[in-house]
């Protein structure tokens, strides 16, 4: 910085210091107003106000989501066809798979799955897919509600939001 500018900056700083004293001499009636507001209860945490708005919204959201889940669940549930499998058929399938060299346990599971897939009608599969979708939506909604509650809880406990946590 050039010497001339340095000197001017010092003048600026000195003037700022001097005029700050004059600004500080300006007295207000803040204390009276603050004490009055405190007595009126304006100093209460905003937590109550947050819940005042959040509680009805949360209740409406829960009711809405529950209704949606019921509707989806009912729509996705199709009549399930039951099929009786003869013992001999299951044994035959098990033996077939076991002959491929796999362990008996895996062979049994695979055989059961294959048999189940063979016996299931396309309608069964559609119904199961619809139920899966419903369950996924319900799980996602529950997660969203839990996250919303966590955020609201945090908002309430952090009141007031703009104050430093410790002295600086």
């Amino acid at each position: 910085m050039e010497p001339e500018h340095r000197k001017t900056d010092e003048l600026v700083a000195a003037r700022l210091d001097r005029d700050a004293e004059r600004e500080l001499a300006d007295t207000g009636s803040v204390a009276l107003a603050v004490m009055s507001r405190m007595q009126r209860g304006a100093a209460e945490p905003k937590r109550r106000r947050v819940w005042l708005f959040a509680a009805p919204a949360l209740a409406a959201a829960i009711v809405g989501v529950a209704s949606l889940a019921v509707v989806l669940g009912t729509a996705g549930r199709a009549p399930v066809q039951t099929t009786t499998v003869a013992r001999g058929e299951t044994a035959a399938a098990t033996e077939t798979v076991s002959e491929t060299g796999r362990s008996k346990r895996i062979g049994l599971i695979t055989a059961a799955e294959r048999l189940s897939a063979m016996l299931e009608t396309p309608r069964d599969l559609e119904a199961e897919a619809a139920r899966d979708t419903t369950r996924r939506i319900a799980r996602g909604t529950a997660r969203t509600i839990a996250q919303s509650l966590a955020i609201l809880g945090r908002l309430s406990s952090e009141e007031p939001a703009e104050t430093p946590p410790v002295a600086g």
Partner: protein
Amino acid sequence: MTSVLAQPFSLVETPRTAERGVTEDAALVRRARAGDEGAFGQLVRRYENRVLALSRRATRTRQDAEDVAQETFLRVWRALERFDTARPFAPWLLTIAVRTARSHAAREHRKRMIGLKLAEPAPPPIEPATADGTIWEEVDRLLPLTTRLALWLKHGEKLASPAIAAAIGKSETATRAIISRAHRTLRESLDKEALDGT
């Protein structure tokens, strides 16, 4: 009660008076925490001018500045449990004041942006704090909010760069640069006679 009020507050504190002030502040805070609103009232009276002066940096009218100052003290009251009485009270209070002032400025900006003030007349010119005006009017007219607040914390509160940086939420380097740029802006906008004048 009267002993605290009777003591004149000086901006230029010696280490001894500063230490005494810290102790007295801590005692008042402890009493206020115990529900003594009178003790909190003493704290407010001790610092109201300082908070009001800082609030003026973020507002256009004296009324708005008083509102910001009031809001600051109400926030302090609500957050008093979190204050560490082993530390000085003033920097903590001023940090809350800075954040309250910023919130106020942001709120005013949002109101203008969403057109709530369309029907209102243009914002009034900045009211001078004193009858004959000070250089701080130029500061309020020329510089952005964060710079005004940083400059006040330096010249009005005599805070060191680390404390200013903590209050405005910037790094020390950035804070020093902000203040340096502010000095340059004022130097360029004011002639030498204005700087020499009172």
